[in-house]
Structures are given as C-alpha cells and as structure tokens.
C-alpha cells in the first residue's frame, strides 16, 4: 500500500481570506517575520496495489476532475516516501 498526497491551493491571483486571517493574527501571537500565508487542502490517499505510471496518471485525473476545481485551484500530486510516512506518524 502506498500513500499519495494531493495538495490543492487556490490560484495565486485569487484572494485567500483564510490565509490572510492567519497572517493577521500572527503579530497578536507574537510572531513576525512571516510575509505571507496561504491555506489550502491536503488529501492523503491510501492506494492499494502497485503505484505505477498508470495508477499515478489516474490519480492525476482524479485530482484534476474532482479534488481540485481548476477554475480556481492548482494542485500537485506526489507519492509520499515511506520515510515521510514514518516521520508523520510520530
């Protein structure tokens, strides 16, 4: 079993009020030095079977047609390495 991560972010030209709200709160929390914050979505897909080219291509399609709305969002697909998975599990 492998894990594929799809990250979906608003296109850069589209206002991201959630990211802005986080950024505006930072000084109040005593954080400075962060010049921009954007907030998006992260999907973790557990894929059965081998993660070959074909499987990845299908996930790419899935992201494009469903997980992201490409009118307003960009996305990336990447396979999460076993090490990362272990790290994240900590």
């Amino acid at each position, binding site marked *: 079993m492998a894990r594929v991560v799809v990250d979906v972010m608003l296109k850069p030209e*589209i206002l991201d*009020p959630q990211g802005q*709200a986080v950024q505006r709160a930072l000084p109040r929390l005593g954080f400075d030095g962060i010049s921009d914050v954007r907030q998006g979505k992260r999907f973790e897909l557990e894929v059965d079977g081998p993660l070959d080219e074909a499987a990845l291509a299908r996930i790419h399609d899935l992201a494009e047609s*469903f997980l992201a709305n490409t*009118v*307003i969002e960009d996305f990336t697909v990447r396979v999460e390495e076993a090490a990362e998975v272990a790290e994240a599990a900590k």
Partner: protein
Amino acid sequence: MTARIGVVTFPGSLDDRDTQRAIRVAGAEPVALWHKDKDLKQVDAVVLCGGFSYGDYLRAGAIARFSPVMDTLIDQAKTGLPVLGICNGFQILTEAHLLPGGMLGNDHLHFICRDQKLRVENADTAWTSDYTAGQEISIPLKNMDGRYVADRRTLDELEAEGRVAFRYVDVNPNGSLNDIAGVTNAAGNVVGLMPHPEHAVEPLIGTGRTDGLPFFTSILKKLVNA
C-alpha cells in the same frame, strides 16, 4: 395545463420542501426528483435548491455534481431545459460548468444570513422575465460559500454579454467579484444565484416580503405560453 417543475433532492438538500412550496404558491406543480434517478420525469424545468449537498464536503456542490440525476440534467440543460440553481444549486451548476466561474468561502470567513438587496440586471432570462431590468428586490441570503470568482476574461465576457443576472446592492456580503449575486448562461435558460427567492414568497414568513415570487411566476408564464 400547468407547468411541472422538478426539484432535485440530494442528500443534504435543505430547501427542497420550501422550493416546492414556492412553486405551488406561484401556481405550478412541483415534482420531486431524486439524485439517484437519471429520470427527470419529463418535467418542464428544474430547480436545484439550497442546502449542503453531501455536507458541502470537499467543495460546495462538488460531489453532487457527479450524481446520476446530473448526467441527464447537464445534457438537457445544454439543449434548453430551464434550470434555476439557488445557493447550493448555483454552486452545483458552476461545478458542472453549466455556469462559468466558481464559488469560494465568504471573504469574512463566516456563514452569513441576512435580508439582502439585489438588482435584477437581466430580466430576459427564463427565470426573471417578471422583473424589470434594474429592479431592486430584497430576499434572504444565507451561505458559507457565496464568493463568486472568475478570471478577468470570463468576468469581462459576462459583463459584455449582460450575463450578470443579479448584483448585490448596498452591501457586498461575501467578496464576490463585481458584486455578482447570480449569472445566466448565454441562452438564458440556466440561471444561478446565491440569495433565496423561495424564502420570499409569502407575507408573514421570513422577511415578510414576496420579492422572490416572480422567479416562479416568470418560468410558469414562459412554460404555459410556450
């Protein structure tokens, strides 16, 4: 003969009964449609009503757009079936690319429920002919994801072609570009908007005004006269 207007119930639809009531108040016959059925029961028009179809998880309208009923509806809308999308219905129509642009979370990040003033910009669609262009109406608005966005080129095109059907007046309640509250397709049979005309059809209830009723009388007249 009266017109038969379908109202689709998706899991999580909320305003299906109200929409049926509004259709009845206008004098047409509401027909309940179910998201798992491809069959549109030969209705003359369809309303996609408000609610949180599939919880609005992922994105508002994104999952509902892939329902069996939508397969048929998308085909028929392209050949002229009148379709009105209210709130979640509007979101579904943009996800289905029957209407341009997309819907995002309100810029203030809160759900907002208010009596909202709009201007009817286009009174030539199937759903707005009982209004006059430029007429101002007040109907309830209630949503989390009401911010209409589209790229510059699409916006220019919509403006140039008069396809911005409704615009917010006085207050832009959600950060929609160009104050857009609703749009129509080029043919004028598919219309979507965020505010809720079906909640403004009876005196006493809700805001106590009936500014939303002409949506339903417009389509009724069009269908009966057709």
